[in-house]
C-alpha cells in the first residue's frame, strides 16, 4: 500500500472543523469517489472531528490518500490527548451520549466508513482511524 499524500490539520475551533471537512472533501474528490461517497466520508469526518474538539479537548486530524494496487482510498486519523473513552462498545451504540447530543456520531461514522478502529486510554487520549476504499 502506498500513501500518496498526507495532510495534517489542527482540530481546536469551529473554524477548524469547517476546514477539516473541506480538506477531506478535497481528498475524496481527488481520489475519484462518487458524490454520495464523498458526502458520506465528509459527514463521518465531521462527526469524528467534532468529537475530538468537544470530548477530546482538541487535537488533530491526518488525511491520507492511499493506493493499494488498483484500489484507492482515504484514511482519516483523529488524535486527542483528552480524557479517553472508558467504554468503547457503549460509545459506539446509537443514542449513547455524554455531551447532550444525539449519540449518533461514532456509530454513524462507523456505518459511513469501510472500517473504523478506536484506541483509547483513560487520561491519555483517544486515537480513531477511519478508512474508506473506493469500490
Amino acid at each position, binding site marked *: 500500500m502506498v500513501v500518496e499524500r498526507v495532510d495534517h490539520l489542527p482540530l481546536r475551533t*469551529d473554524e477548524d472543523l469547517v476546514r477539516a471537512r473541506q480538506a477531506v472533501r478535497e481528498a475524496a474528490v481527488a481520489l475519484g469517489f462518487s458524490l454520495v461517497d464523498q458526502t458520506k466520508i*465528509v459527514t463521518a469526518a465531521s462527526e469524528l472531528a467534532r468529537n475530538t474538539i468537544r470530548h477530546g479537548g482538541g487535537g488533530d486530524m491526518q488525511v491520507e490518500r492511499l493506493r493499494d494496487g488498483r484500489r484507492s482510498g482515504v484514511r482519516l486519523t483523529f488524535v486527542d490527548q483528552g480524557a479517553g473513552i472508558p467504554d468503547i462498545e457503549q460509545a459506539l451504540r446509537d443514542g449513547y451520549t455524554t455531551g447532550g*447530543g444525539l449519540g449518533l456520531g461514532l456509530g454513524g461514522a462507523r456505518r459511513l466508513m469501510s472500517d473504523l478502529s478506536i484506541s483509547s486510554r483513560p487520561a491519555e487520549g483517544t486515537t480513531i482511524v477511519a478508512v474508506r476504499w473506493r469500490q
Partner: protein
Amino acid sequence: MERIPILRMGPFLLVTIQVDMHDRLALTLQDDLMTQIRDTSARGVLIDISALDMVDSFIGRMIGNIAAMARVLDAETVVTGMQPAVAITLVELGLSLPGVRTALDVERGMALLTQGRDPQGQRGRRAR
C-alpha cells in the same frame, strides 16, 4: 458576528443556508429564528438547504430543534432542497428528521406553507 440572514415574506420567514455552517452559526440561526417568529408572529418558516453539501448529526439536530421550537411558537417549518447525496447519508447516519416537513424545492415548500395548517398525521410527509 457572522449571521445567516432571515427574510420576511408576508406571514413567513425564509432562510437560505449558503455557507459551510460551523456550529456556532447554526446555534445563532436557531436563536435568531425564534426571536423573529415571536417579533413578526410568523406562521411558517422555510429553510432552504439546497446549497449544503453535507448535513451531519449536529446540523440535523439543529434543523429538528428549529421545527420543534417553531411548532411550540405556533409556526410550521418546511425544509427544502436537500441534495440526494445528503439525504442518503443522513439516513445512513441514523437521522431521518422525524417531525420535519420537507419539499423538493422552494416553490413546493412555499405551497406547503401557504396551504395552511398542517393536518394531523401529515407531519413529515413530502410535498408532491
